[in-house]
């Protein structure tokens, strides 16, 4: 498809919606292109850039490198402003630092300290982007919020439910991070990039001469720009006046034999092989993290593989909570390929996922997302 044809045909689901639409703008190419696409379709747009994290905090993490790729850096804010100026639509910076810390950063650190491996992006979507930001969008007169997520929303004409679907471009799909959205949130959201590939998005951005068309992508968690979670957690906890130095403990085998020492449970993830501080004849992996006993349990690859898991805080999206087990596919981490499973809803917003074949390194704190093909049925946190 030519870029002109793309401009004319997209976004399919959104083009008939009237009224002001707010675009959550990070200053990157994706969300900037969303604004351009909506304008091409004659939609009145207001850009909102969230200030989420003060990079001057925890200066130990700054390093000497340039300030690019940092979340909420002034550069990103200015990039968003430049795009808004280039395309002539109103743009504002809105401050959600407090909500971000309370609902994303602090739980992220607490989860790590509890021996789990959290994903901050899911919380950020559910608790910040599609909660206070969406509310602010509505308060300023925009009924809908568009973001640069690669995912799709489809209205089920039979029952009126909003369905969440994978992006057309599977390599960019971000539906895994969006399972927490409610029907209300989905009904007010638009993902205009869901039908596009990253290359198509860049081409569109270049076509309308967006100043960020060739801006590199940031891959790291936004508030830990150097990717060093361990250091981040240490500095964050230090700021609260605590020290993590005293949390060392034993690394044991499944039958309890001490084989090494760990430097604090938050420094390990399930399935980790490197950095355990000792070697044996065979490859050894972290099997479980036990903060109660302050132990890391290790074993061989076979022991990492399990068939069933339970998830909590389950959100059924595209269908109502089923009364009988359903055949589906489940994804247990962002880069995991959804595997065939039977899913059974349990009381108390829980569910049990039974895979056809054992899956490697099922990790508490990660999200498990249940698909039926492209459709996201539900998601929940792995217990």
């Amino acid at each position: 498809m030519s870029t002109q044809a793309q401009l004319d045909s997209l976004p399919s689901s959104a083009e008939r919606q009237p009224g002001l639409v707010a675009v959550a703008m990070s200053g990157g190419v994706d969300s900037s292109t969303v604004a351009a696409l909506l304008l091409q379709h004659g939609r009145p747009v207001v850009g909102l850039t969230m200030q989420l994290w003060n990079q001057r905090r925890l200066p130990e993490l700054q390093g000497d490198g340039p300030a690019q790729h940092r979340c909420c850096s002034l550069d990103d804010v200015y990039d968003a402003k430049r795009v808004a100026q280039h395309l002539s639509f109103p743009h504002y910076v809105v401050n959600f630092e407090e909500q971000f810390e309370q609902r994303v950063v602090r739980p992220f650190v607490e989860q790590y300290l509890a021996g789990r491996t959290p994903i901050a992006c899911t919380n950020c979507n559910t608790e910040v982007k599609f909660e206070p930001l969406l509310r602010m969008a509505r308060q300023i007169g925009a009924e809908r919020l568009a973001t640069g997520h690669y995912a799709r929303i489809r209205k089920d004409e039979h029952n009126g439910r909003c369905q969440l679907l994978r992006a057309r471009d599977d390599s960019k799909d971000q539906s895994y991070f969006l399972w927490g959205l409610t029907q209300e949130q989905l009904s007010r959201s638009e993902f205009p990039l869901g039908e596009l590939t990253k290359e198509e998005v860049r081409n569109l951005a270049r076509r309308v001469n967006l100043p960020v068309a060739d801006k590199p992508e940031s891959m790291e968690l936004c508030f830990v720009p150097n990717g060093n979670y361990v250091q981040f957690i240490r500095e964050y906890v230090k700021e609260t006046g605590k020290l993590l130095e005293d949390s060392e403990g034993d690394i044991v085998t499944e039958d309890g034999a001490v084989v090494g020492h760990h430097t604090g449970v938050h420094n390990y993830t399930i399935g980790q092989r490197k950095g355990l501080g000792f070697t044996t004849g065979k490859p050894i992996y972290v099997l479980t993290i036990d903060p109660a006993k302050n132990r890391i349990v290790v074993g061989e690859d076979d022991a990492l593989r399990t068939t069933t898991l339970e998830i909590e805080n389950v959100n059924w999206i595209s269908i109502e909570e089923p009364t009988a087990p359903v055949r589906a596919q489940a994804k247990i981490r962002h880069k995991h390929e959804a595997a065939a499973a039977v899913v059974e809803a349990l009381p108390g917003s829980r569910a049990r996922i039974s895979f056809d074949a054992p899956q490697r390194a099922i990790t508490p704190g990660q999200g498990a997302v249940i698909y039926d093909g492209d459709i996201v049925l539900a998601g929940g946190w792995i217990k």
Partner: protein
Amino acid sequence: MQRIYLDHNATTPVEPAVLEAMLPYFSGDFGNASSIHTFGQRARAAVETARDQVAALLNARPQEIIFTSGGTESDNHAIFGVVYPLVSWPSKPSPNPLDDLDKRINIAHLMHVVTTAIEHEAVLNTCQALEKRGVAVTYLPVSREGLIDLEDLRKAIRPETVLVTVMHANNELGTVQPLAEIGRIAAEHDIYLHTDAVQSVGKIPVDVKACQIDLLSLSGHKLYAPKGIGAIYIKSGTRLHQLVYGGHHQRGFRPGTENVAGIVGLGKAAELAGISLAEDSARISALRDKLEEGLLARVPDSRPNAAGAARTPNTANITFPGIEGEALIIALDLRGLACSTGAACSSGAVEPSHVLTAIGLSAAEARASIRFSLGRHTTSAEIDAALEIVPAAVAQLRQLSPGYKREFSAHR
């Protein structure tokens, strides 16, 4: 969309007559005011005329006016200029640097400055910088109406107090401190008095002699001159340390080639303010009162802040419980009305306004407060429009504000 500007405490448009006065000094009369030749002499004449004009507005003498880049520089100059020499290294360094350090710290600890809790950041952060160097600073509290208590000031003064710095009019509330009384107290104790008059000069009469002021900061862009030009009044005989070193411009005290066009603009603006101040004041305060009363009548649960105090004629600050000021500012801007949550420099800040919390507002109330600041060209029709736009926007925000109904509608 027709846009209405009610944020004159953030900045004002350059008055057409001011712009006209400035224009010759960009290209035609472009000379360096320090040059000997005719080009330079023409620029010098313009600068000195401007100095006369600014001095006249303050009841000062021309030689007591030094041009600066604006209010922030003037504030820094006044405060550091008084205190810094007293906390600097001894003139003859001792062989052991640690001895010097001890002496310096000891000297610094003997210094004391009195200011208020509601100063602009240009003063507050300068005082905090002094504190880091060991100087003691007292931040006087203010009443619900935003005024300091003169008894508090008397009690705060110590033998080692070297400077009292109290803003004249507050940028967020418009409240005007009793400068004449403050000047009397400072004079009685033989302490230098500095006032940040950025928000008052051009809006209300300022008389440095009557108020016994030693140092005063003002900024051009708050009185219809351009940004980037300001002045400091330094009473003759005030011993003020030099902060910037360079050539002999402005008698070497504040070197740097004069911003001739900016200075001319500031002078012209000062002249215009002197002519129209009384008339402007009456008209603008009537419009401000109409806006304030109208909003209080039309927006349920709204409350004025510091409305009972002496205020600059153009400022109103109103709390609209149940809203986030940040969201309201955006909603209003999208409807063509520009106003502010407080100081423009702190927009986007997480912390609630230190001024509003100082007058006793909770963090939530401070975040729900909006400043409207009118100007010389604000019209009655614009106020009428604002009286339609604001209540509608507040109502829309409150509908989507989870806290509002619970807190307020229940007991109405």
